């Protein structure tokens, strides 16, 4: 026999609009699918349902007034958003942050990373039909949010950092409570892994799904766990250390195959490394002020700065263009990791089934607040 087989009957492709209101799109993402049966021929992410014009808002507000807006980008991990913004502003204004403030920032950022990763695990697992990890992870997330609340009064939109340092010092007993929490966390991570890591169904649903090679991942500009899952050892905390990340020891876990399972393992290990970082920060937390001496009105030089942090989802960068003596950026651009990671979605799901689409959306760990900003 030569040539491709002729289909015996007419085959019609089905268009399916997956979202924006759908339980598994993690917000208001819409994916326009072309399906052959259940097989995905083409997937097109459509965004913009949550656009608020955050970057434009930044042009009208002073640096410290911008910080609450950053909370609402990746609303699951607010501390890293604050951190990226204040680092960029400090770079622009030439401010050095006192060591105690740096360490507290790192503690908050890593707590934020853990809370973001457990939420990712919860939603990813529930997308694949495992409902129990959801409740386990929320138990730990609650305790982390309690710590945030104790520190700054807010649980989700923290607004916890200022240009030049921090608004408050840690309350009494916070260090002990935090250290108690992080001591108990690895035990809970083991619990999640008991449910999933060696589970046959979990492995069947994740191994070989949404594979992306290291070259492709770099070409797409992926960062964070989607990049490291493909075996590229790239983490802003290591390659361009900010705050005091060069003073603490931690490892960057990487995957091998670039599939959903590897990204799962990478994130699980990242949570353990975060615990390690917090432990070191708590042990060597220096005394001193938490705020540098900064003028009441922050006035920038003319220039362009870019500063980025390793957010839980990848590289989160802020770029400011300022004119001389301006109190606010002339133009601000945010590099949100989710937005750039989402680009790889069509390539990762093509040829897979609809059920794999939710696995891939889950494994990219997107958050729409940051994509649409």
């Amino acid at each position, binding site marked *: 026999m030569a040539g491709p087989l002729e289909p015996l009957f007419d085959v019609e492709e*089905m268009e*399916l609009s997956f979202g924006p209101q*759908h*339980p*598994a799109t993690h917000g208001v993402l819409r994916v326009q699918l072309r399906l052959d049966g*259940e097989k995905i021929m083409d997937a097109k992410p459509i965004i913009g349902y949550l656009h608020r014009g955050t970057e434009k808002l930044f042009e009208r507000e002073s640096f410290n007034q911008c910080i609450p807006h950053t909370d609402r980008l990746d609303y699951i991990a607010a501390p890293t958003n604050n951190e990226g913004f204040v680092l960029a502003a400090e770079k622009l204004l030439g401010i050095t942050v006192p060591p105690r403030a740096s360490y507290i920032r790192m503690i908050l950022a890593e707590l934020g990373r853990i809370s973001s990763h457990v939420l990712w695990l919860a939603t990813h*697992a*529930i*997308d*694949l*039909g*495992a*409902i*129990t990890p*959801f*409740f*386990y992870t929320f*138990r730990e997330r609650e305790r982390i949010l309690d710590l945030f609340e104790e520190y700054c009064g807010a649980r989700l939109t923290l607004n916890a950092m200022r240009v030049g340092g921090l608004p408050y010092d840690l309350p009494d007993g916070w260090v002990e409570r935090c250290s108690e929490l992080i001591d108990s966390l690895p035990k809970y991570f083991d619990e999640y892994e008991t*449910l*999933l890591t060696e*589970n046959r*169904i*979990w492995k*069947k*649903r994740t191994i070989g799904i949404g594979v992306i090679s290291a070259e492709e991942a770099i070409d797409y500009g992926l960062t964070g766990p989607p990049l490291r899952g493909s075996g590229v050892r790239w983490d802003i905390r290591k390659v361009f250390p900010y705050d005091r990340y060069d003073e603490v020891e931690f490892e960057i876990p990487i995957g091998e195959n670039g599939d959903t399972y590897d990204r799962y393992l990478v994130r699980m290990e990242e949570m353990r490394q975060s615990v390690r970082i917090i432990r070191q920060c708590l042990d060597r937390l220096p005394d001193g002020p938490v705020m540098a001496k900064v003028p009441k009105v922050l006035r920038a030089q003319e220039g362009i700065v870019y500063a980025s942090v390793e957010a839980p989802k990848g590289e989160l960068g802020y770029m400011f263009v300022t004119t001389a003596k301006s109190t606010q950026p002339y133009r601000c651009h945010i590099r949100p990791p989710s937005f750039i990671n989402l680009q790889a979605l069509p390539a990762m799901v093509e040829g897979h*089934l*609809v*059920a*794999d*689409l*939710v696995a891939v959306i889950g494994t990219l760990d997107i958050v729409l607040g940051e994509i649409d900003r």
Partner: protein
Amino acid sequence: MDQPLIQFIVIPLVKIVVILAVLLLIVAYLTFAERKILAYMQVRLGPNRVGPKGWLQPIADAFKLLVKEDLVPAKAEKFVFMLAPGLIIIPALLVWSVIPFAPDTTLFGLLKQPIPPYLTDINIGLLFLLGVSGVGVYGVILGGWSSNNKFSLMGGLRSAAQMVSYEVPMGFAVVSVILMAGSLSLVRIVQAQQEAHLWFFVPGILALAIYFCCGVAETNRNPFDLPEAESELVAGFHTEYSGMKFALFFLAEYANMLVIGSVVALLFFGGWLRPFPSWGWLGFLDIIPPFFWFAGKVAVVIFIYMWFRGTFPRYRFDQLMHIGWKWLLPLSLANVVIVALGVLLLKG
């Protein structure tokens, strides 16, 4: 009143009413049990607001669903859309006419003659059960199709493929039990286990595993709950259903779970018999009425169902088909051959 009237009209009618009422009550409380059991598996409390410790929750749920607006999508195929919930609930309730949940009883000496508490014992009981519950798939397919919603349609298509393919190994698993018992009557099958002094799960352990797997798939429960996979297909074939129609789908699912549990108990675990029915010194166990033995066995099966739901992720559609056709079907065929040989040699 003359004797035939009582025997053929009154007694069956009373039985039907009692069985249906008790069944629906049990089904309602199964939802409650599932929520509570899952809650305790998931470090939370579950429903605890309505009534003492939440015990009135199922009643409140039923009431809420009854008074809810009954939406029919504008572009739905209205007649079929109305028909589908009926098509799924009727078989789920109808099969209870042949399930013997206890032996003949005098109701603690109230009656002179012992009568069977179940509705009827027909000589093709098992075949009837498989046939009638097979009709339920039409409700799912038609419900998915008539909603005129792509997610529902995909849910309906999935379940059509899933339920049809899992009925095949399920049938073969049942065949091996029929070979052992030599009868299709469910009462006879239990009696055969009594006479053999052996519950059939010992020789039929493979058949039990296959049957239970298929049963989970047939009832669309985790890890085979693809037709209603929430994260992919919103709610699958019943996405567009609301109010009491949705409740009927829901009731049917739980009633079918009970059927699977009952069949497992009847075919493999001696139905209403106490453990080791031939060991005289265990006679003190007879103080527990046979119905409770049966109910206990069903409860264990249902608990395993819920345990699955708390533990497993969901299979993908093609993986499910793979398991059904490439593993369960050959295994069940091999099992039939082995059991047939065994029966031939031992009883020969």
